[in-house]
């Protein structure tokens, strides 16, 4: 592994800073609860890096014109999850059991979620953006990469065995055939 690669992965393993910098405590709790259902595996912080990005005001180069700017989209999106949760179950999102949270998320993904927010902001597009960002953060984490048998980071000597069913000694064996 090169020094630059090691530094990038180490930084990601550092414990997340406590609390939210941009979102309110309640918005952050809703986001964390949603991310825990989108990528259900403990030990990988997703809401923290999203909040950190919103605080920094950076983005990935584009957004759907149909959505408001990211900060506003996330704020309204978290309110929307609560509205949908209230409409279906009569309780805020964070107080629902996992199955109820999944019902809310599915309704948002399908663009059928009840709630005032979704009248003005397309629920399916918001869900797509949230899911894509959460997924990218998750699978960039060394623990998630290890779990899928990814060894690309160990490329300092280069790869010679690159064909089908070829593997170098430093690579993990196949997870499944």
């Amino acid at each position: 592994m090169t020094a630059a690669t090691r530094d990038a992965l180490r930084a990601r393993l550092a414990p997340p800073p406590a609390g939210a910098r941009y979102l309110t405590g309640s918005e952050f709790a809703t986001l964390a609860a949603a991310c825990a259902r989108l990528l259900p595996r403990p030990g990988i912080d997703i809401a923290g890096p999203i909040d950190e990005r919103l605080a920094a005001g950076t983005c990935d180069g584009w957004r759907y014109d149909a959505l408001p700017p990211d900060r506003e989209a996330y704020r309204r999106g978290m309110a929307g999850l609560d509205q949908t949760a209230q409409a279906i179950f009569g309780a805020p999102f964070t107080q629902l059991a996992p199955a109820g949270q999944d019902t809310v998320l599915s309704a948002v993904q399908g663009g059928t979620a009840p709630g005032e927010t979704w009248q003005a902001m397309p629920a399916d597009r918001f869900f797509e953006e949230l899911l894509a960002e959460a997924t990218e953060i998750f699978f960039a984490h060394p623990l998630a990469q290890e779990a899928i048998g990814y060894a690309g980071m160990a490329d300092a000597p280069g790869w010679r065995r690159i064909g089908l069913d070829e593997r170098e000694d430093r690579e993990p064996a196949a997870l499944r055939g």
Partner: protein
Amino acid sequence: MSARTASRLPCVAELVDAVVIGAGAGGAPLAARLAQAGLSVVVFEAGRHWDPPREFATDERAQSPLFWNDERLSAGADPVAFGRNNSGTGVGGSTLHYTAYVPRAQADDFRLRTEFGVGADWPIEHAELAPYYDEIERVLGVSGPSPYPWGPPRTPYPLPPLPLNGAAQLMQRGCAALGICTSPAANAAPSRAYHRPGIGTAPACTNRGFCQAGCSTGAKGSMDVTYIPLAVAAVAEIRANTFVTGIETDASGRVTAVVAMRDGLEERQPCRALFLCAGAVETPRLMLLNRLGRGPVGRHFMAHAGLQLWGTFDEDARPFKGMPGGLISEDTHRPADADFAGGYLLQSIGVMPVTYASQVARGRGLWGQAMLDHMQGYNHVAGINILGECLPHPDNRVELSGELDARGLPKPRIHFSAGENEQRMTAHAERTMRAIWAAAGARDIWAFPRYAHTIGTCRMGWTEDDAVVDADGRAFGHPNLVLCDNSVFPSALSVNPALTIMALSLRTADRFLKGVH
């Protein structure tokens, strides 16, 4: 935004012969050529000058600063993804993160209107670009098959092809079963150590497979390790971290100076000629911001049909290794059973894990346990995709939105809706690719609809009624303003654009020099 009048700004710089905006595929070859001819040249680049061996990590998120991350608003029926999908930032531009896949356009690509009665012809011919293709391939050190199975006769590639990875072998297997001809693809990375003329020795590609997030070894033929060093050797100045905000003209339309922000300070650079090479979104954005150009500035935005088809195989494919685009077929360049104009190429594709997971999220909408389960098969995933013609439509366009960026400038909004031709071609390609992947033994096959590259917003042509620049890239109405990047393409071509942009860059420089001397 402060008023930016010439009288209020200190004149910090001496008059130079040429300012080039953008250090990518459009600007770098041209900058080298002009400097070699003895012109004083300054290249403005918005991003950093990276030190890849020290700074480039094998980590997708850590490499995201290579993409053009200023926000673009994506509108229309088929909104195009930007960021890592196309433009780059940094000395080298998008070549910092291109796959190195460098097929040549075929001769008929330049005559789409003549051939099909739709789209647009180029005002220049393939034969005029062929010597420049030769030259670029020699400088970059392109590895490819000789003879090449498709297109007009050509000089051999400087290097033999790179080895095939899992995805390439699977596509070879599927295509063989269907009688589709394939070949190792041309890639701008040396298959063995290679002396780049005038630059130095490039190492052989180590099959890192991370081309789309930056090459850390110097093997990939990106501009920062090829034409930029040539430009610097000829005493061109590369001014990194410099974001151009203003272009000043006199009453006759001649460009007199460029205004830019560097390290928080505004500076003004007087010039005799300006070469605008910022790509098919930033080039028209600068034209529109500065009210430059005649003709359809910002119109005819095109993005290649880029449908990707993924499948899971019994074999271990380890899609992160080797050249992402290892295998090619151009049998579909002009399919016999086509119900559309133009054509497409087929290629095998490897993929890095974060990029793949993100596509699974957007394309399949998988989350929860279903996402985790799917990603358990990552090492068994392989893909194929197309790169297809896109017809120009005036309503597909770049415009200035009412939303301001951190610099106080309007963010660009890009409208794109695929037309019937793109839809028919994509449907044809999906049928073809599903057959190939089924024949190769794939299961859980799924398609990711996608449009890639930014093309055609300041197109070249014969008159200002229908075009923004002439065949030499000169902007109508501005005698010393030359455009050179994918914005000047009148048609999208049925191949990846990088090599043609570079060839056009050298030709544009030669045409300019001929006019000067």
